[in-house]
């Protein structure tokens, strides 16, 4: 079972982590919510799968293209 990387499309602050390691998430479900330029922007699962790693912490800054989580699909 391959593990894929979930990357952020924007630079922002990690506002909330809404899923945990071991969670099964559906495609397009939010894993992390970033705050950027006064907007809340979710980073979503590109495919359905099980989260194997969350790579950010709440309150930290996340760059565009950074890996936010890993997902077994």
């Amino acid at each position, binding site marked *: 079972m391959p593990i894929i990387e979930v990357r952020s*499309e924007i630079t922002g602050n990690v506002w909330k982590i809404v899923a945990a390691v071991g969670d099964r998430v559906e495609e397009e479900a939010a894993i992390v919510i970033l705050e*950027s*330029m006064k907007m809340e922007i979710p980073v979503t699962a590109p495919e359905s799968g099980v989260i194997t790693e969350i790579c950010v912490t709440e309150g930290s800054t996340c760059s565009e293209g950074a890996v936010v989580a890993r997902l077994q699909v």
Partner: protein
Amino acid sequence: MIRRLLVANRGEIACRVMRSARLLGMSTVAVHSEVDATALHVALADQAVAIGAAPATESYLVAARVLAAAVDSGADAVHPGYGFLAENAAFARAVEAAGLRWVGPTPKSIDDMGDKARARIIARAAGVPVLPGSDRFSPADPAVTSATIEAAAAATGFPLLVKAAAGGGGIGMRRVDDPAGLAAAIESTQTMAARAFGDGTVYLERFVPKARHVEVQVFGFGDGRAVHLYERDCSIQRRFQKVIEESPAPGLDQATRTAMCEAATALAREQAYRGAGTVEFVVDADSGEFFFLEMNTRIQVEHPVTEMRTGVDLVAWQLLLAGGDPLPVAGQDDVRAQGHAIEARLYAERPAKGFLPSTGTLSVFELPATGAALLDGLPDGLRIDAGVRAGDTISHWYDPMIAKVIAHGATRDAAIDRLRAALAAIRIEGVETNLVFLQRTLDHPAFRGGDVFTGFIDAHKAVLLAR
């Protein structure tokens, strides 16, 4: 007379407020966060005070630090701009309690208009039409029968929305077009609301299928007198934020325009409103009916549209009133509007990716030439209010708006053409922007024809967002 003005904001609005303050002979004090130490608004000010770390909650939103900066720098007045602390009544009270002038409405007006339920009551008392809606009710309450629900729905009118009272983000919201669908929609919303918010209370509100957002600029003298400075149409929106604003509102009939302007002025008079404010209405594009949405108790982002059409420097009026100086206006007859003005907001964002924000450093930032003075070149002018210059970094900490481009012309077409040409002459590298999107919008036949409504971008996205 204000001698030294602290501007409690950043970006283009801080720069813009300082321009008028300087024209009136005031010295200016900027406040800034750590990442804004070299920002344009800091460079333009006579002095600057660092007030904290990059997150707004640790700097621009910390009322105590902003007030301390004002007191320590010897400022005798505070202008809040828009956003941040502009509609924070407690901050306004603290500024006045410290013996400084607050360049804004009374804290009571901020409180009254900030509470949406109270604002509706005051609007009704002033004779302003409000969006028909029901009281809140819980369908589980045995006193609420199907007859009372049907009566509330009939009074609201169809189509209507069933909304969760505790809600936000449209969760559980259902559209109902006729009485037959009412019971099922209410049950569905109640269930969703109970699950999401732990509270199944709902209410009904009239739904306007094709809505325009039209607002009226008002200015109150604080003694019960008030004038309006005509309307602005702000229907072109994305993510519930305005993108293009213009005045006059295209295609609005004269009777509606007059009624809206008079209703807005009445609301300002009712509160003995002080200073600049904006009364926002939703207009039914099909029927022409208009309803009060809310009143913004501050200078608005899009105020230059009004300034370009009337030749009035609204910020100067704010500063004169706050300083106890005579205003260059005595009544409605002194306010004249000419031609057409239109503004485009330049955002650091990626329209094709759902308008996601874009960050980076502006390696190139070149704007077409405009007049040196604020209102130069009327009646055929071009104005650009920018908050950044080449070399600046657009960070993720603050709003993605980097500049406003405003054009005036004798006709709507002339104003649009001038704006279109100005946008085409802008060169930006280092961040992605909505420049191409803005030009496509201005070129769209439906926009040119004046068929604007809040669903415009979504309705025409195939053309506007094409790769």
